[in-house]
């Protein structure tokens, strides 16, 4: 008997890894060896949980999944992470949705090391705080952070959208070509973004309504109907990107 069962990824799956058998209620009944023997399906073929995860603890209804790169390069479907996730969530993803009900590490929706492009499609919703470089080098897609985002959110963005409801750290949008960073909270804006106007962007209204009605996020009316300061940037780059900072109702 232990407080928590920890599953630490030791082999990155080459295909889709289905963990339907891994539920907290079931793990509460099982010994460590039985947990490792639980059936999973990898790329449609039968395998054991222990083939991919190091199992620590047993007979506990709390499960901690320690994995990095959850949903990396996924092209479709829905991935729901109950709890915190590590770094590289949805890195280079191309489609589908990832929802993390907790915090994420760095580089969510970002790029693989050395890659020119980060995510090229799909949606990542982080119901918590994000680490650094969320949505870095994104080409298309959507990253939403309901809490705070670290440094370099949307750094080197090529296109796409990042929405941060909390505080956005420094260097957000640095080297952005196109794309939008929507900051509902305070944001440390690089000097290479220039103020354009204050207005009610129709696409932000549409996007936030979508997040509220279709993704079930608790988006306040003042953000949906509010005014935003539009800053164009990064003017050290193409300059067709934008940072939209909420400016009041």
């Amino acid at each position, binding site marked *: 008997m232990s407080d928590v069962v920890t599953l630490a990824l030791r082999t990155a799956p080459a295909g889709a890894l289905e963990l339907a058998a891994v539920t907290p209620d079931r793990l509460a009944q099982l010994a460590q060896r039985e947990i490792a023997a639980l059936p999973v399906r990898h790329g449609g073929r039968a395998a054991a949980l222990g083939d991919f995860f190091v199992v620590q603890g047993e007979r506990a209804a709390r499960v901690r999944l320690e994995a990095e790169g959850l949903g990396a390069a996924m092209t479709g479907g829905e991935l729901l992470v109950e709890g915190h996730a590590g770094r590289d969530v949805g890195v280079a993803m191309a489609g589908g949705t990832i929802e993390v009900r907790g915090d994420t590490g760095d580089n969510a929706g970002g790029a693989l090391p050395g890659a020119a492009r980060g995510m090229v499609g799909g949606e990542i919703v982080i119901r918590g705080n994000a680490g650094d470089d969320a949505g870095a080098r994104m080409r*298309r*897609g*959507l990253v939403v952070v309901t809490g705070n985002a670290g440094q370099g959110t949307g750094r080197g963005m090529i296109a796409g*959208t990042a929405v941060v409801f909390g505080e956005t750290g420094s260097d957000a949008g640095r080297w952005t070509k*196109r794309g*939008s960073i929507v900051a509902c909270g305070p944001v440390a804006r690089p000097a290479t973004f220039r103020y354009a*106007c204050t*207005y*009610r*962007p*129709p*696409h932000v*209204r*549409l*996007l936030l*309504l*979508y997040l509220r009605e*279709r993704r079930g996020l608790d988006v306040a009316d003042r953000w*949906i109907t509010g005014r935003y300061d539009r800053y164009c940037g990064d003017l050290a780059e193409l300059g*067709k990107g934008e940072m939209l900072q909420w400016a009041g109702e």
Partner: protein
Amino acid sequence: MIINGVTIEDTFAEAFTMRVARIVITGKTARWAREAALKLTGFATSVIGCKCEAGIERELAAPETPDGRPGVSVLFLTMDKESLPQQLIVRLGQTVLTCPTTACFDGLQAAPDRLAVGRALRVFGDGFQGSKVIGGRRYWRVPVMEGEFLIEETFGMQKGVGGGNFLILAEHADAALAAAEAAVLAMTDRPGVILPFPGGVVRSGSKVGSKRYKNMLATTNEAFSPTLRAIAPSALPQGVNSVLEIVLDGTDAPSIEAAMRLGIRAACLGGVRSISAGNYGGKLGPHHFPLRKIMTASAVA
């Protein structure tokens, strides 16, 4: 068949297959959505002269629209696939793009035929336009003096029905107009149906071609013109001195049939002698709406 003293003639309305798009226009207020919709659907009574037929389907409350603002739903029809995007691009570009506060959305999202209307209109942005994908649908943001015009990239097109109709044969012009107004009121806000003519009513039902002028596609229907009863073959019973027509276009035949049922019943007022319908002998149009069958179905229902 007689309803409220009005004879329902044993005939049918003959309608054609058209192509239809549904345009949802939203605005800061219902007024501005309506202003854009009225301009968009202006001069769109008949394909004979307008190249398209369009009308307001119904007004939409804020919760019904994609951006949560008051809106108007417009049905827009043409005879063939090619002219629908052409007409939409020209008309949306001159009416909705120009109208303060409006945004423009596709109302036929499930239709597999997609018309790249927003994609064509984006170039008004002269390279400053940008796009956003929200919920799997792409929208264009076109910078304008007011701020930004938002339009969906593609609009769905499906087969629709054009030319559903009925004729109100009345003892005098006032009775015909009162019956037509009552019919239009009964058919307003019916989903899937528009009445493209002024106030929903036509006074100049036409026949195909001309007896005298080669270049005329359509000319007056002398058989239904009371002033010509003495000098041309007439279809009007004695005592009928004025005829008005209601034309219905829609997304599908059942919607038109349901609207006709309501409209005909409402038109059966004092001073109306009979309700008839226009057809071409049944050989031209694939959709037939037999009046008595439609009204019998209502009695059962």
